[in-house]
């Protein structure tokens, strides 16, 4: 994992990257964990370390096993094989009500018969703390989540965003070592979701709690997380920081799952400093720089992000130049996405920032255009 410090999502005095330090002790360790439900294998021989103060995202489509991992951490499921360690201790024998782990439920699971205040105090009362301690802690949580005004309301008397914050406050009240968030923002609308993402990051930093979030929303994972684990069919595909996941995906699956991408399939051959990918009869090969070592003649893929593809009226003097025709334009305000059809019917997407305040589009339907990208922009993938 080699990323420049400037790529780090979290600016701070020291770079936060315990996963790069060889002697850092992980908070959570999954050791060859397998979980089966009958014939169905939800988690398949999975090993993973998560470190203290991390904001770790489990990302994947529904049914990929991310929720099962979270429920095993909370204690609602036990692994069929393998071990899960929390601070070096096997947590299998500890029932959910005695774990220093709390969970924020997807449905929030707020107790409808209790007020906001009583919901937040619920876990503290179970610990048998004295009244003053509980009151002080609940008030602190209400302040943290800006809910002071709603303390005496019932859950059905507040808005969706407020409910989300109550659920967060309730699960944080016991100051768990680890907080699990199951699709925490899934029920909110887009604008509120974006605001709340930053609030979550803020709260995570203030409390210094380790967060593990489960989500199927790649944008959300990229925004909030220090590291993202992309999962599919019970396996980890890639675990890395968001910039690495985006710019250096390790597979077509990851490249395709995160963001927009055009993928060319072909055979590869080494040519000095770089590789060439022959992808279609009569088309120039694609040039790509890559640290990977591939055999000549091997099947490989080049993935290229639309924002790295330039679009021109005249042929530019560069490598990776393809001729095509604009068939579709998606105007998004700040940028436009062009769907360009290459000879032979292949589609490639190119994005242009609309930096000029001009109502006319620089390119329009049926325009004959040239697209190109530099040899460092494409990503060469083996699978």
């Amino acid at each position, binding site marked *: 994992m080699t990323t420049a410090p400037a790529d780090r999502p979290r600016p701070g005095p020291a770079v936060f990257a315990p996963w790069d330090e060889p002697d850092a002790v992980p908070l959570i360790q999954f050791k060859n964990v397998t979980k089966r439900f009958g014939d169905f294998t939800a988690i398949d021989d999975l090993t993973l370390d998560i470190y203290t103060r991390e904001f770790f995202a489990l990302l994947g489509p529904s049914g990929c096993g991310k929720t099962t991992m979270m429920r095993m951490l*909370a*204690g609602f499921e036990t692994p069929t094989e393998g071990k899960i360690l929390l601070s070096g201790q096997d947590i299998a024998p500890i029932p959910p009500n005695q774990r220093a782990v*709390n*969970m924020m439920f997807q*449905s929030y*699971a707020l107790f*409808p*018969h209790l007020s906001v205040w009583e919901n937040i105090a619920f876990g503290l009362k*179970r610990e048998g703390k004295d009244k003053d301690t509980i009151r002080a802690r609940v008030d602190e949580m209400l302040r943290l989540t800006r809910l002071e005004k709603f303390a005496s309301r019932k859950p059905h008397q507040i808005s969706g965003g407020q409910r989300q914050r109550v659920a967060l406050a309730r699960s944080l009240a016991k100051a768990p070592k680890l907080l699990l968030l199951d699709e925490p923002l899934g029920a909110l609308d887009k604008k509120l979701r974006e605001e709340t993402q930053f609030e979550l990051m803020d709260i995570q930093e203030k409390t210094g709690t380790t967060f593990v979030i489960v989500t199927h929303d790649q944008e959300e994972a990229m925004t909030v997380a220090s590291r993202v684990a992309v999962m599919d069919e019970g396996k980890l595909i890639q675990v890395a920081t968001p910039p690495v996941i985006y710019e250096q995906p390790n597979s077509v699956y990851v490249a395709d799952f995160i963001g927009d991408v055009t993928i060319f399939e072909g055979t590869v051959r080494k040519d000095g400093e770089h590789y060439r990918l022959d992808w279609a009869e009569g088309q120039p090969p694609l040039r790509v720089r890559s640290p990977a070592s591939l055999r000549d003649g091997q099947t490989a893929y080049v993935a290229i992000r639309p924002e790295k593809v330039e679009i021109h009226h005249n042929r530019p003097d560069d490598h990776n130049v393809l001729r095509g025709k604009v068939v579709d334009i998606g105007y998004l305000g700040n940028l436009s996405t062009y769907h360009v059809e290459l000879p032979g019917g292949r589609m490639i997407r190119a994005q242009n920032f609309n930096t000029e305040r001009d109502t006319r589009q620089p390119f329009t339907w049926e325009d004959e255009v040239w697209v190109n990208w530099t040899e460092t922009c494409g990503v060469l993938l083996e699978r």
Partner: protein
Amino acid sequence: MRRFALIAVPYLWLLALFLVPFLIVLKISLSDIALSIPPYAPTLDLSAGWEGVRSFFAGLDFENFVFLTQDDLYWKAYLSSVWIAAVSTVITLLVGYPIAYGMARAAPEWRPTLLMLVILPFWTSFLIRVYSWMGILANEGFLNMVLGWFGIPPLQILATNTAVYIGIVYTYLPFMILPIYATLERMDESLLEAAEDLGCSRLTAFWLVTFPLSRGGVIAGCFLVFIPAIGEFVIPSLLGGSDTLMIGKVLWEEFFSNRDWPVASAVAIVLLLILIVPIVLFQRNEQKQREAA
């Protein structure tokens, strides 16, 4: 015009066959018994014009109600009806709650079948369900036969209040189970996981989360048993003894055996007055449930 007809048909039907009869009961409860046909006085004589109406109202009084307070048979019957209904309601709750809970926690593919099994007795005759206990509780019945195998001396249960309790619990049990099941089944299971996650054992999670959340169903179930049980006639007359006092039975006997229509009507009016409180409370609970849902 069509809308008017639409409203008028059911409206007039209910006025004629529900409200008017009820007003007649009220009127007769204020009349005196008479040895004539109909066996009460006064009767409204419209042929005498205004004078007839005036003498009709002058003839009405609260004598029958005063009589109810004087004869201790009546207030004892009211009290004992309320008592028997209340005790039976509590027992029904204790029997019904675990069943409703077990149903709501059963595998989802089993629930429709279990629900059908609870509703099925509804469709069989009430009379037959009460009757089935006569064979069990009789002195030479099944229960005493089974007790006999274990050397336990026979019990006299039929024709006592115990038999009435059993009968009410048995016949009204579905009324208790269904509303409780409905609230439990609706409950989000992640609430229980959240409670466990926050440090509850399973038993405390039940008392702090499950039970409070099923309260609406419990209250509804209790009223659904309590209200009809007060006015019950079939169960006390088949399973109860001659000393089992329930107001429905008293009213029946007052009417059919003593043929004292005015007193029977007064008994009915007082019974309704007693029922108003639980009915209003029940309606309020239903309202609250609807708002919460």
